[in-house]
């Protein structure tokens, strides 16, 4: 229904603005209905202005900036409609160290209501995990799980010496 859509949209918008500022350490972002008279059919405009930069088309954002903006919107939706489990596959791929760190800090705010499974190659994300598993193919073509400690993981996620698991 229209009323439900608008209520949800406004809540998502509110969360989006806050999460964006947190992930970027400033700046501002918004989502706007192009045709507010016609919410169920209207297009949706997304604007994002990283701190210190001018507002411009989101197509001009860098790869990492787009990821952070997308994550802000995704998590705004999750905050509006919490899901108990959230599986994220390499969402930090385009992020540098500082942005990865801010992303990990964002997860902390959702842990009350949402459980996360993250697939990652980033040591910084691994360092924030409560539990770490490695998947290996000791026998080619066949996946196995190893318990992994953070110290066993080399740069960029290769498992150096899987402990006897």
């Amino acid at each position, binding site marked *: 229904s229209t009323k439900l859509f608008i209520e949800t949209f406004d809540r998502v918008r509110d969360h989006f603005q806050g999460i964006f500022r947190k992930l970027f350490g400033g700046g501002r972002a918004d989502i706007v209905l192009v045709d507010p008279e016609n919410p169920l059919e209207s297009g949706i405009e997304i604007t994002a202005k990283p701190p210190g930069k001018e507002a411009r088309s989101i197509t001009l954002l860098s790869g990492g900036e787009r990821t952070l903006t997308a*994550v802000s919107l995704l998590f705004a*939706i999750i905050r509006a409609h919490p899901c108990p489990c959230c599986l994220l596959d390499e969402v930090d791929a385009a992020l540098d160290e500082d942005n990865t760190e801010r992303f990990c800090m964002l997860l902390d705010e959702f842990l009350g209501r949402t459980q996360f499974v993250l697939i990652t*190659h980033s040591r910084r994300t691994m360092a924030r995990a409560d*539990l770490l598993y490695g998947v290996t193919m000791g026998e080619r073509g066949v*996946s*196995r*799980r190893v318990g992994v400690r953070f110290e066993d993981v080399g740069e960029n996620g290769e498992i150096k010496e899987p402990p006897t698991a």
Partner: protein
Amino acid sequence: MKLKFIELFGFKSFAERVRFDLDRGVTAIVGPNGCGKSNVVDAVKWVLGEQRARSLRGNEMTDVIFNGSERRPPMDMAEVKLVFDNTERVLPVDRDEVAIGRRLFRSGESEYLIDGQNVRLKDLRELFMGTGLGPGGYSFMEQGKIDSVLASNPTDRRKVFEEAA
């Protein structure tokens, strides 16, 4: 509601029975390219009722059954099991623990299980209605897909918001 563990057997590269006990907070899965991490995400989508082979990176549904390696022959069945902590009774089942399972045989036959009972796919999917967990929605962010949250195509962008509302 928390996901206690994910168990795969015969699903894609998991020729052996492998179980991932999850943390209540953040569980990270790491490993080299092609070792099977994203296959774990596919497994969770699939057992929650995903019906589109394309959404699991395959062409037909039987593509999810382990189809051999240099040393092993193909298997006849893929099976995935999820066990939830349901002490908060988020799921409409009056038990502290709820197990769901899905099997697919080479013949094309399927089985769907809730706590060991055979059910229809419909029942399995309905179990999660309203929880926010399911193959659509925001529980899953597949590898390489984070950018699509900012879809530039107006129709795709609306879809992002409609699934939220």
